Structures are given as structure tokens and as C-alpha cells.
């Protein structure tokens, strides 16, 4: 078994009186792909938001690389190696596709805002015209997700499926060890779906651990090493995909009765 | 209790009621359409000028009452026209910066058109009660001021009844809470937008007549009610009508007390200090989570 990279213990989040995530404990290992599934409103996105630092947990802990990171801000977690995408894409609409990637490539561990602003006056560090390394890396990532032909297009003009890929490329540009994907296949047609599966596999092939929220069963069953099932904010099952898929509790959660999943 | 103190509180409540009236329109429009209208106080200015002209024709108390009605109608029409021509086409813009800027453009335009058409000298609206005062024991005030307070309260209550009881009013509140759901429920959103803007502007128009009667009418008078209305709206939570009512009274009292006990020359700054504090401590306003209208 590979090294453990992230662990949550009793993770809980309340919104007002509503418990969105309740007492969820699990661990992720280096380099694995874990599928996070559950009916709508099960708390999947909330869990990803907690892990990426969008808001602090109400209680419980998150350890990343053995360090307690609960309550850390999103930008800080990103600098530590956790990147994410969003259910509703949040690309930078007025930037070109290339600039979207370049925005991620800046080494923010070394360059704070003041340093970035002041060095720009005498050095072409991260200058859009002049930084050859950053440009090469950006081109490589564009090629990786198949967006090379669109590099100078404004992001807001991209077809929907490509905005999803751009967001993945942007997340990759921050060189994550753990990538959280929130419904990367939502709204894609069958061909685009196959492309997306290929991209996710190749990212994983580079040693990046992935937690993926997905409703499209074809995707989740074919790429996940392991599944975690949430229902009403609680973890109700965890394990190998086939086993979880047949788990009566899971079937009940999805179908709301004692019906069985037809194969 | 100190009678000066009490007197100031009463004065504050009176001016506060007018702030509430004007701010309600602003907060309604924000709640329903997410428009922050920096020209809102200029609707009040237009209302005040309508009163000036109506009272030229028809002086005395009767003229004043007619002026209030005429201001409501004319400013409502002006509001609807500006909504259709200027604001609605910008509803799908990427940032709210466009909407705010365009309303600032309208503010500059209206204020200077007024300077262009009307003389710069302030005009007084004749007191329909002939300056009679009322003695209420510890405090005294003019009949006019008392009437302003009563009239504002009645107008506010009337609006509340309309919003809570009538079908259209409920549709407005529904749109304010969730415009997408309202649309799915078969509410004609565009009609609601027009209606809300008209109604909100009319409140500003009436408020303008009262404000103009209490102080004076002049072309650039709109800026202060605009800023006050924003202070009140933020105080009560933007889009929150009940918040705006209380916010208006709070600001009115805080200003008169601050003006008499602290420093008169900084009276207009008191509101800003309050909202900067409110925004830093409780950005959703004093009155609860985002409640909608």
C-alpha cells in the first residue's frame, strides 16, 4: 500500500442548523483514484469544499501529509499541493486559454503580490511575452488536454466541454499531489466522456492522487480504485467499486426503497 | 429624562421616517433586480420639483396633497422609463460594476438637467399647516413634521400590506427571494421588474416631497438622500424591507443625536461611520440573514 496522503477524522460541517457533512472519516493514499458518490444533496461538494479550504469544518480534523490543515485557506492548501475543479466551472472568462494556464503557473510560494509587482518593473519574470519556461509549460499542458488550437481564444468563447478541460489543465498547472474533481463529466456527450476518462487516467499515471465526484457511472466504475458513498452527509459505504455497487445500503440510498439494482 | 434629549429623539424619528420611505424603494429594487441605483435620490429630487410646480398652480394644503399624488405618479413613470431604457439592457452584464456606473451616469445626468432647467436657488415648499406647532408635553414639534411622520408611516404600512396580502405583492417578494424559481412558477418576471421599479421610484418621489418640505428644494438635493438611502439599506441588509424601515429610524436618531451632542459639522459623516462599522462587523446588515423582501 502506498503512503497515506490525506486523512479526515470525524469531519463535520453545519450550515445553520443543517448538517451537510456529518462525522466523515476516510483516508486517501498517494497515487490512487477514489470515487465519491451519493444522491443529490448528499454532501459531496461540501466535503470537497472542506478538503480544499473553501470554508473551515465545524468539527473534526483533516490531515494532509501528516499535518493538520483544517481551517487553512484555499490558496494555502493549493500551495501545499491540493488542487481542485468546480461543479460549475470557474475559469477566468476574460483571459485567453493560455493566460488561464499561465495564471496558475506562477510560483506563489516564492512570489507574493509585492514581489510579483516589483520584480515586474525590472525583470520579465512571468511576463506573458518573455517567460519562455512558463510558456513552454503552458503549451505542454494545453497539448495534454487537447486545447492547443484554442490557446489564444478568450475562455468565455470556449465550448462547454472545453471549459471543463481548461479547468483541469489550470488545476494541474499548480503541480498538485492531490486533485479534487467535482463532476468533471457533467454535461459531456459520449465521445467527450471518453476523452475525459483518458485525461483523468493520464493525470493519475503521473502519480497524482485523485478524488472524483461523479454521477456518470460509466466513468466512476471504470477509473476508480475505490469508492466512498455519502448519504445525507454520512459515509454509508466504502470499498472496491464492484462490492460497493452491490451493497444493499447503497442501493437503498439511490433508489429509496428495498429494490435491487438491475444488471 | 432630559427634554433636549427627548426632543432630539423625536426630531430624529421624524427625519428617519423620511429616510425609511426613500430607502424602501432602493432596497426593493435591489432585492428584486440586484440593481444598486445611485440615482435613486434624484427621483426624490424630481418628486420635490413636481411638488414645487403643482403648488404654484394650487397653493395650500390641498395643493400639497395633490403634489404628493402627482409626485408618486410622475416619478413612477420616470422610474419605469429609466428601467426600460437604461437598466434592463444591462441585467445580463458580467459584473455589477456596469450597473453601478450607469446609475452614476443617470445621477449626473438628472442632477445637471435639473440645474439646466430649474434655477440653482433653493425653493421652499410652503408649509401647508401654516407653521403651527404641537406641544406634546416634554417635546414640541410642528404640525408639518408630525404629519410627515404619520404620512411616512402610513405609506410604509400600506406598502407592507400590499407586499404581504396582494397577489402581485407576493409575486414581488417571491421574485426577490428567488427569481428563477419565481419564473418557473409562472410569474412574469419582466412585469414584476417594471412594477417594482415603478413602485420603488414612487416611494422616492413621495419621500422627496416630504424631504423638500422639511428642508428645501434645489437641483443637487438628490445626492444626500441617495447616500442616506444607501446607508439605511446597508444598515438593514440590502434587499430587506423591514431592515430598511428600522434602519431609517436608527440613522435619523443617530444623526440628530450625534449632530447635537458630538459635532454638527460632521453630521453627514455619522451615517458613513455607522455603515463602515456595520459592514466590517456584520456585512449582512443588522437585521438577520439575507431575508429578501
Amino acid at each position, binding site marked *: 500500500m502506498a503512503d497515506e496522503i490525506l486523512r479526515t477524522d470525524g469531519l463535520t460541517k453545519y450550515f445553520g442548523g443543517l448538517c451537510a457533512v456529518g462525522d466523515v472519516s476516510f483516508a486517501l493514499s498517494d497515487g490512487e483514484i477514489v470515487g465519491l458518490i451519493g444522491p443529490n444533496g448528499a454532501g459531496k461538494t461540501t466535503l470537497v469544499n472542506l478538503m480544499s479550504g*473553501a470554508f473551515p469544518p465545524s468539527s473534526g480534523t483533516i490531515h494532509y501529509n501528516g499535518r493538520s490543515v483544517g481551517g487553512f485557506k484555499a490558496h494555502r492548501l493549493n500551495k501545499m499541493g491540493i488542487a481542485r475543479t468546480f461543479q460549475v466551472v470557474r475559469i477566468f472568462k476574460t483571459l485567453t486559454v493560455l493566460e488561464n494556464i499561465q495564471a496558475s503557473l*506562477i510560483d506563489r510560494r516564492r512570489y507574493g*503580490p509585492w514581489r510579483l509587482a516589483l520584480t515586474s518593473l525590472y525583470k520579465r519574470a*512571468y*511576463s*506573458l511575452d518573455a517567460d519562455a519556461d512558463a510558456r513552454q509549460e503552458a503549451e505542454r499542458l494545453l497539448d495534454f488536454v487537447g486545447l492547443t488550437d484554442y490557446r489564444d481564444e478568450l475562455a468565455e468563447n470556449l465550448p462547454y466541454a472545453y471549459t471543463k478541460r481548461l479547468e483541469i489543465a489550470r488545476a494541474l498547472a499548480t503541480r498538485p499531489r492531490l486533485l479534487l474533481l467535482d463532476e468533471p463529466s457533467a454535461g459531456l456527450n459520449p465521445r467527450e466522456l471518453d476523452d475525459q476518462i483518458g485525461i483523468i487516467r493520464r493525470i493519475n499515471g503521473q502519480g497524482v492522487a485523485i478524488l472524483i465526484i461523479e454521477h456518470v457511472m460509466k466513468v466512476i466504475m471504470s477509473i476508480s480504485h475505490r469508492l466512498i458513498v455519502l448519504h445525507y452527509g454520512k459515509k454509508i459505504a466504502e470499498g472496491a467499486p464492484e462490492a460497493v455497487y452491490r451493497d444493499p445500503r447503497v442501493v437503498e440510498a439511490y433508489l429509496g426503497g428495498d429494490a435491487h439494482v438491475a444488471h | 429624562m432630559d427634554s433636549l434629549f427627548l426632543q432630539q429623539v423625536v426630531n430624529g424619528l421624524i427625519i428617519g421616517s423620511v429616510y425609511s420611505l426613500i430607502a424602501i424603494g432602493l432596497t426593493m429594487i435591489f432585492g428584486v433586480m440586484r440593481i444598486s441605483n445611485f440615482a435613486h435620490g434624484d427621483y426624490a429630487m424630481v418628486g420635490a420639483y413636481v411638488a414645487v410646480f403643482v403648488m404654484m398652480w394650487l397653493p395650500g394644503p390641498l395643493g400639497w396633497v395633490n403634489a404628493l399624488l402627482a409626485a408618486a405618479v410622475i416619478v413612477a413613470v420616470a422610474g419605469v422609463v429609466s428601467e426600460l431604457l437604461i437598466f434592463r439592457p444591462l441585467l445580463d452584464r458580467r459584473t455589477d460594476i456596469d450597473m453601478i456606473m450607469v446609475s452614476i*451616469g443617470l445621477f449626473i*445626468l438628472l442632477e445637471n438637467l435639473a440645474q439646466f432647467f430649474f434655477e440653482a436657488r433653493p425653493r421652499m415648499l410652503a408649509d401647508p399647516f401654516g407653521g403651527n406647532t404641537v406641544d406634546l408635553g416634554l417635546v414640541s414639534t410642528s404640525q408639518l413634521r408630525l404629519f410627515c411622520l404619520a404620512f411616512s408611516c402610513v405609506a410604509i404600512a400600506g406598502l407592507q400590506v400590499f407586499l404581504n396580502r396582494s397577489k402581485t405583492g407576493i409575486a414581488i417578494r417571491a421574485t426577490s427571494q428567488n427569481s428563477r424559481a419565481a419564473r418557473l412558477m409562472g410569474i412574469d418576471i419582466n412585469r414584476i421588474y417594471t412594477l417594482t421599479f415603478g413602485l420603488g421610484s414612487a416611494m422616492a418621489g413621495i419621500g422627496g416631497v416630504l424631504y423638500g418640505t422639511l428642508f428645501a428644494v434645489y437641483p443637487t438635493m438628490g445626492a444626500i438622500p441617495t447616500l442616506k438611502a444607501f446607508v439605511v439599506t446597508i444598515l438593514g441588509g440590502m434587499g430587506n424591507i423591514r431592515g430598511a424601515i428600522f434602519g431609517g429610524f436608527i440613522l435619523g436618531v443617530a444623526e440628530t443625536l450625534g449632530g447635537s451632542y458630538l459635532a454638527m459639522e460632521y453630521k453627514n459623516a455619522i451615517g*458613513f461611520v455607522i455603515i463602515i462599522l456595520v*459592514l466590517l462587523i456584520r456585512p449582512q446588515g443588522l437585521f438577520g440573514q439575507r431575508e429578501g423582501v
Partner: protein
Amino acid sequence: MTPRTTRRLLTAAGLAAFFTLPLVVTDRYFLHILVMTGIFAILTSSWNLLTGYAGQLNLGHAAFYGIGAYTSAILATRLGINPWAGLLAGGLLAAAAGFLLGIPSLRLSGPYLAITTIGFAEILRLVAMNWVDLTRGSLGLYGIPPLTPIPITSNVSIEFTSERNFLYVLLIVLLLTVWAIRRMIRSGFGVTLKALRDDEVGAESIGVDTARFKLTVFTISAFFAGVAGALFAHYQRLISPDTLSLGETFAILTMTMLGGLGTLTGPILGAVILTFFSEWLRFVEDMVKLDVRMVIYGLLLIVTIRFMREGVVGLLVKLPWWPKTLGKGGSDGR
């Protein structure tokens, strides 16, 4: 000719015109208009950095301008501090105020930030009106010394009492401002600002500490406006609380919107167009005896936002011979 050479030629021609104009022009009134254009160009460029590129709606920009003006003026008249040092001091104090005003921006946006920034400027204006001991109130500060002469030899020195020599100083400051903003916008700093403008949550997710970036850009923007204010004080040699007024901010934002918000050349173009246009209008108004200038400002603002959101620059970019930057990997040329 490649777009790049066209652009360079245009820039060179513009710069040449820029620096020969004061030599050719002899009319003092015209020189004065040029000075005011230059000061407004610094203000619009700095406001645009904050609002156009970083998306932080600041309606209190005149406050930074006023702080710069009052700081340098008070230092010179009360403490006899050299106006050249005053320029820097004015910029720095305005920058400190910018940092302060940036703090609410960490939690507020849109109308909330707009009203807070208006409030900030209004409070400062009231202070300038009422702290008579320090500012002489609404009378304003007068007798502000001009920039001190720069000695060349023991008996020759450059004076800055004439409009022309002052204009050269101003042009250099303007050029430095525009150059610095341009370098910043085209670097990773600018990309980050635009990212944070487009989507704050998205920016956080790629490691942008949005809070620190906002504070930084508020501070930088305020610094330039403060220097512009200090320059104005030593040029006009009389300042009043009007420098802090809302009207001043509205002029800045109308110019920027007209030229093109979020573009590099737009704010300068807007400052040039509107300063000259309003002087011309003043001329017309004298003839027809009507005050229509501000009416036109309001109309321009509405029409620009409604029909030409990208401003005059947006129209120019559509011309076939205009050098395009888009397609070279930069979206900032628009």
C-alpha cells in the same frame, strides 16, 4: 509591416509628439489644459489599475488625490519641506490610506465597496473642511511653493514656475506611471489581478492569496493618485477640499469608461478627450450661455456603458489598420 512594428512606430510617434508639444505650444492657456490632461491621465490610469484590472469598484479615488495634495502642501507650507520630497511623501501617505481602504475590500464587493469608498472620501472631505487649523477649511491652502529649481551650474538652474517646465516634470511622472502599470499588467501580477477580477474563488483555488493581492493593488493605485495630487498642489499652488469631492471621482471614472475600462491606452485617451472636450464646451457655453457640460458627461457615461462597453479603444481596435495585440497571447491590448 507587422503589427509589432506598427505598434512601436505609433508609440514612438506618440512619445515624440508628447515631448515636442510643450515646445511648439506657446499659449499659456493651452499649456494649462495639457497640464490638467496629464494629471487626469495619472488619475485615470491608477483608478483603472484598481477598478478595471482588479475589479475593485473604488468610488473614493479623489480621496487619494486629495491626501497627496494636502500632505505635500502642508509639509511645504508648515514645515518647509522640499516639494520634491513632498511628492514622494504625498504618494506614500496616499498609499497608506489605500492600504487602509483596501481592508474593507477583503469582505465587501460591488455596491457595498462602492458606498464604503464614497464614505471614506466624504469623511476625509469633511475633515479637510472642518480641521481649519491644519487645512484652513473651505478657504483652502494657498501660498504653496512651486517645485524648487534644479541647479545646473552655479548660476543657471531650471525653474518650475512656468507651465512649460512643469509640464515636462508632469510628462515624466505620467510616463513612469504608465510604464510601471504596463509592466505590472503584462506580468504575472497583472494576470493574477485579472484572474481575481474574473473569479475570486477560482483564483483562490490556484493559490492566489486574494486578500493580499487586493491590499497590494489598492496601495499601488493610491500611491500614483497621491503623487498626482501632490503635483497638482505645487502647480496650482492653491488647493481646497474640492479636490476630494465626489465630482472629481466621477470625472475620473467617466474618462476611464469613455476611453475603455480595463485597457492600457483607454484611460489616457479618455483623459485627453474629455479634458479637451470640456474646455471646448466651456467655449461654446460662453457663446450660448448654457451650462451643458455635466449633462453631456452623464449622457456619455450612460451611452458608453450601454453601447460601447470597451470604450473608444474598443472602437479603434475594430479598425483594420489598428495594431492588434490579441492573438499574441495577450488580452490586455484591447
